[in-house]
């Protein structure tokens, strides 16, 4: 009896301990181990661009960290690589629990600027490093004229078309205007059954990208000249009316673009089941693997091809919380050297953000299939990344802008504009 009671109370105590432990957690080593002796450990959190263990970005960052510590013995770098699905949530948790990284490499930066968590780029980068960035990218890193976001890698969009399908449909050159897109799509529908003439992915994965490309073609876009949101501008509403009347209703694209994700469209193209679509450089490898003979052309606009295509960048940022400004500066200057960025871009077939690396990649002749994209980079148009409300607005766009091609465009875009205004009012 006595034994049992004792065992039970031990169990209770152990249980209680375990339970309280689950409440406390984390937050302990938040000062990044800036211990005595001048030795500092920088905490680096980065996204994983590899799709398997063997080409994980961890290998790259560990290499950079080791080389950096060898050159700067007082500064260690603690590398943590997180996959794309989890990185947003994990960073949110780190910020909430006060356990913030020193350097973060991920998809967006502006929402952190809104909470005043980041160093300015000029505080953590030498003048030489800053001067090396391609101008459009450096500008896309600005919030109210001050650069916080440090571009890391980039990509740009272009029209991919399946040469075999075009030949089968009797089309000799890729479309340059919307009307030609419709005519070519009609030909493909008539002569190449089983192929989706134009793959229009407006599902939640990346609806904000596809919709912006089309809006740019009509002189529209998510924001106006003054930087305010113009989601329901006449140009944008017209764009969606055109899509609905000319591609969706006649069945020249997917039956339900609002639920079709970009990965589906890419997979279809790589399987030879899509005539044309807007793609980015990662589609090159997919098309090659699928033995699809593809062509790349400028993206068609309403009356002429787009002068500035959609550019996308991933970002690096430095957090103020741990006060490691000087060490971060040394590390970032090291990480942004040409050898390192070149190695990263070549590993993952990504586009550079610095002039020196762009020059190297263009001149080396090793990247011929990327060449159409190199030409597009310097005049790319970006999402309004510098707007601190963009993340929230972008999430709303992803969720529902696709319904504009099946429902009433004016109403869908009007609702979105209202939400964007609310987001601006509450920032």
């Amino acid at each position, binding site marked *: 009896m006595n034994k049992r009671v004792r065992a039970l109370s031990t169990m209770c105590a152990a249980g209680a301990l375990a339970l309280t432990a689950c409440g406390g957690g984390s937050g302990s080593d938040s000062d990044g181990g800036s211990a005595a002796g001048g030795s500092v450990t920088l905490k680096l959190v980065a996204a994983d661009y590899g799709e398997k263990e063997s080409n994980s970005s961890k290998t790259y960052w560990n290499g950079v960290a080791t080389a950096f510590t060898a050159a700067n013995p007082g500064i260690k770098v603690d590398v943590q690589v997180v996959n794309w699905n989890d990185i947003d949530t994990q960073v949110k948790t780190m910020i909430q629990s006060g356990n913030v990284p020193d350097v973060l490499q991920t998809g967006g930066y502006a929402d952190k600027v809104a909470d005043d968590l980041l160093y300015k780029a000029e505080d953590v980068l030498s003048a030489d490093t800053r001067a090396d960035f391609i101008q459009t990218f450096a500008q896309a890193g600005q919030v109210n004229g001050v650069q916080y976001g440090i571009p890391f890698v980039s990509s740009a969009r272009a029209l991919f078309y399946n040469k075999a399908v075009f030949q089968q449909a009797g089309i000799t050159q890729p479309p340059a205007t919307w009307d030609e897109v419709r005519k070519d799509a009609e030909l493909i529908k008539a002569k190449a059954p089983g192929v989706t003439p134009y793959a229009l992915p407006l599902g939640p994965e990346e609806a904000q990208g596809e919709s912006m490309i089309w809006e740019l073609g009509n002189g529209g876009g998510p924001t106006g000249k003054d930087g305010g949101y113009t989601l329901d501008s006449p140009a944008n509403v017209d764009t969606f009316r055109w899509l609905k009347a000319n591609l969706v209703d006649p069945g020249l694209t997917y039956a339900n673009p609002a*639920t079709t994700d970009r990965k589906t469209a890419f997979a279809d193209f790589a399987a030879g089941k899509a005539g044309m679509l807007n793609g980015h450089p990662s589609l090159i490898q997919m098309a090659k693997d699928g033995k699809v003979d593809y062509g790349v052309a400028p993206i068609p606009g309403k009356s002429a091809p787009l002068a500035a295509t959609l550019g996308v960048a991933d970002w690096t940022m430095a957090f103020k919380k741990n006060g490691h400004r000087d060490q971060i500066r040394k590390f970032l200057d090291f990480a942004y050297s040409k050898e390192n960025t070149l190695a990263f871009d070549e590993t993952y077939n990504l586009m550079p953000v610095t002039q020196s690396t762009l020059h190297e990649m263009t001149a080396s002749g090793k990247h011929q299939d990327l060449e159409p994209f190199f030409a597009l980079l310097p005049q790319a148009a970006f999402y309004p990344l510098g707007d601190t409300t963009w993340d929230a607005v972008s999430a709303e766009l992803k969720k529902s802008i696709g319904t504009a091609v099946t429902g009433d465009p004016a109403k869908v875009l009007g609702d979105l504009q209202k939400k964007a205004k609310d987001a601006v009012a509450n920032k």
Partner: protein
Amino acid sequence: MSLNSPARKASRPGRRASTGSRPGRLGPLPWIAPAVLLILCVVLWPVYEMVRTSFLRISTSGFVRGSAGLDKYRKLFGEADLGHVLISTVVWTLAVVGLTMLLSLGLAQLFNQRFPGRRFARWALIAPWAASVLMTAIGFRWMLNQTAGVLNTALTDLGLVDGPRDWLGDPSTAWPWMVFVAVFVSLPFTTYTLLAGLQTVPGEVYEAARVDGASPWQAYLRITLPLLRPAFLVGVVINLINVFNSFPVIWGMTQGGPGSATATTTVFMYQLKTTDIGESAAMSVVNFALVVLMVLVFLKVSRWNGEER
């Protein structure tokens, strides 16, 4: 020493009395303490956190910017989608629970009969239950895929549809398929609950009914159903809660899309999470209140009906 001893003596009976009564008063406490602690930690604490979060302003980067008062609730009730999401939730819950109970009554009756291979048939019934619901949902999503789905191919080959269709892209066809999958995964548990209920009905009652000249249908209505009542109620309550909160079926098949056209309140709450955590927490609180209310109302109504004393 001598001064101490009376006190010690005096205290002794008291202590003895208290040790004598302790098992009576504190008896169950050490035994239920772990469970109580567990409930505190995994039920009450999260509820508290959920309610607290719904009154906070949290930036998209996860930074807490202070109190929001009732703003998040105002924003939630101002959502244009909320109305149809609530209606969908009610229809979804009633349709799935109703169909599940109806089919399970039949299935339980069937499995209660003696037939060769009954044991294997009963085992087979467990399969949809044993598989992860999310896995089942994703499996159906691929089976219904427009370009590669087997169900699409089968339906086309059988001549039931003209050509492969994007079933899950259009809300009007996505809902019936999701109801079908939800019923499919709810059947095993419900059938087993009812089967257990059926087996508690003593055979003599049926014998007596037969002697009195009752038809099988009368016997079912007058004997089986009333005696099945406790098992049936358990099945309904658990299914109501499960289906109302059902997330994996819908998320796995449509993610609530296009927009929120195939979302129930639980899925809608998850969709809100990407834009505003505070508002999402407010939706959770509303959800929590709804499910508690629903169960209370249901229990009240069913007990009031079942007063047989």
